[in-house]
């Protein structure tokens, strides 16, 4: 925390810049290799196909910034699609269904947050319980997949918005609004500053008189809300509710956030980084589908390698920062 801005790019931005460079490089590689890759619609599709991941990554960024983790996001997405499908089948209007889904996600998040803060249960275990609960509840509602036939819901899902040559869906608009709002909250509100402070050092934050407890519960509510919202976007995308939707999605999200330059120990990171992280993963998937001969499991291996590369990069940066700090103190 220096008062005078350093003349060069501060090293805290390095991970985000590195992620962006990787995104440009992967996308560039795709454009060189495949005809028709470097089109506006492919970029738009990256957002359309990954809108729910972007929303999830935003929620996860809040949690990870405080030094926590949320394993329940994939299961909450599945539960949201299930509630949406079941409620619409029962004849609920679309708006009431969406409200119910968002409320359920937030309440689940609140429950996990309270468990973590009030009862000192480790985030890993508390959200693991949340994950089991949400997945199990899906199957309590229905073991089978339930398709969504509500005309209003389908209209929102399939409506496309033309933007010059390309077209996007409402999901993309929602995702971008979430990103903008999250960036505002993190950087321009007291809540956001407390999130960073708690992630940096919780005891110091508490001793400074910051509302550390409220923030710690708050980030899980945000993550729960984001998961439910992502679940709605996912049900727009799939037009069905199913308990086995989004299995393992929490790993993709955590990978995207880490690739986006957020440190898992908390306190360092930006939502924009997470968005670029999602785009990198999306580009890798697009390239593999363009290649055609490469099987889908290569996606997992590439994501694993990317994760490793970024973790190594972060280690280097953290080490260098420590060295610099050590030198300046001498």
């Amino acid at each position, binding site marked *: 925390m220096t008062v005078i801005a350093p003349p060069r790019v501060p090293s805290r931005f390095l991970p985000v810049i590195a992620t962006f460079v990787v995104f440009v490089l992967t996308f560039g590689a795709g454009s060189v290799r495949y005809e028709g890759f470097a089109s506006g619609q492919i970029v738009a599709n990256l957002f359309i196909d990954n809108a729910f991941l972007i929303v999830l990554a935003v929620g996860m960024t809040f949690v990870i910034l405080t030094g926590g983790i949320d394993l329940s996001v994939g299961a909450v997405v599945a539960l949201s699609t299930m509630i949406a499908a079941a409620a619409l089948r029962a004849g609920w209007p679309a708006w009431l269904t969406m409200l119910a889904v968002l409320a359920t996600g937030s309440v689940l998040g609140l429950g996990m947050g309270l468990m973590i803060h009030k009862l000192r249960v480790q985030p890993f275990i508390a959200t693991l*319980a*949340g994950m089991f609960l949400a997945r199990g509840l899906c199957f309590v509602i229905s073991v089978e997949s339930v398709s969504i036939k509500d005309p209003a819901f389908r209209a929102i899902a399939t409506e496309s918005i033309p933007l010059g040559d390309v077209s996007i869906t409402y999901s993309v608009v929602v995702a971008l609004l979430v990103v903008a709002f999250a960036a505002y909250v993190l950087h321009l509100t007291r809540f956001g500053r407390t999130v960073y402070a708690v992630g940096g050092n919780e005891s110091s934050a508490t001793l400074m008189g910051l509302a550390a407890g409220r923030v710690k519960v708050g980030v899980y509510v945000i993550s729960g809300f984001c998961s439910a919202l992502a679940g709605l976007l996912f049900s727009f995308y799939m037009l069905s509710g199913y308990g086995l939707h989004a299995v393992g999605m929490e*790993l993709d999200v*955590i990978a995207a956030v880490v690739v986006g330059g957020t440190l898992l120990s908390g306190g360092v990171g930006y939502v924009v980084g997470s968005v670029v992280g999602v785009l990198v993963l999306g580009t890798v998937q697009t390239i593999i589908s363009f290649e055609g001969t490469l099987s889908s*499991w290569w996606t997992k291996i590439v994501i694993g390698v990317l994760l490793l590369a970024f973790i190594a990069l972060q280690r280097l940066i953290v080490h260098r920062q420590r060295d610099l700090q050590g030198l300046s103190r001498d």
Partner: protein
Amino acid sequence: MSNRRLLWPALALVALLLLNLVFTPSFFALRLQDGHLFGSLVDILRNGAPTLLIALGMTLVIATRGIDLSVGAVAAIAGAVACTHIADGGGPVTAMALALVLCAVLGLWNGFLVSVVGIQPIIATLVLMTAGRGIAMLLTEGQIVTIDDDVYRQVGAGFLVLPIAILISLAVLGGVALATRRTALGMLVESVGVNPEASRLAGVRARTIIWTVYVFVALCAGVAGLMISSNVSAADANNAGLWIELDAILAVVIGGTSLAGGRYSLTGTLLGAVIIQTLTTTVYTIGVPPEVTLVFKAVVVIIVCLLQAPRVAPALRRAPAPPKAEQEVEEVAVR
């Protein structure tokens, strides 16, 4: 002290078993047929053997303040290697040896990332958790490899009065108990978990110990993977050992070992693994759809965590009044 910590898990297990007795009066019946022991209790142990084995390795990893998320993927890789080798005409013993060597290498990799590079365990093992299933798919070329080999089938489905899988897991439990409780090894593992830096300064080879436990858990995962694939005589890269890392971690936590490292309990882990498997079996016998097991698992995790919390809470925070916490516990427990 250790007995008191195990009181709640033990009570939970007894309650589950009694619940089964109400629904199926013949639940505790055991019979000997063709020299094999049959019965619901044996089934529980047999199905729980892979989880127990991985949970044992996980206990040591967690005691060093680590965690290994990659065990499910490692189990899948072990099954894939062994089955593809046998399918290509190799012998079952070389197949298993090959699988375990590869698992040891994967364990070395995880241990290297954690102890030498110094990456947080959860992230270091996340890499292999994500990439591992891809590697297993690569080995099986995305197919489910089915094999027919009597020797290989023994590991997961064979009997020596008791199922061989149980005997393997119990032998490992005995071995670990001897190695860590009859020598100083267990204390060294705990000291590394409490404070790696202080242990190093006190002359404990923290790095070697951390490295060793990751290799050990990967080997456990490898044997568990062999059990799983041998039981069905097939390697399924996608589903073999899926979520077993979560079950194993859960077993360790239910057994009273803290994720914050330090003191661990092998008996607790045994109890935890048996509770999880009994829970799954109970849900089947009661006639609830098996998918709903997850809800019960969640309830058990929450209850066990809440029961352990009030004991921990007063020590962690000084100011807030403890009665409030207990009140909350009762409210949730009643629900």
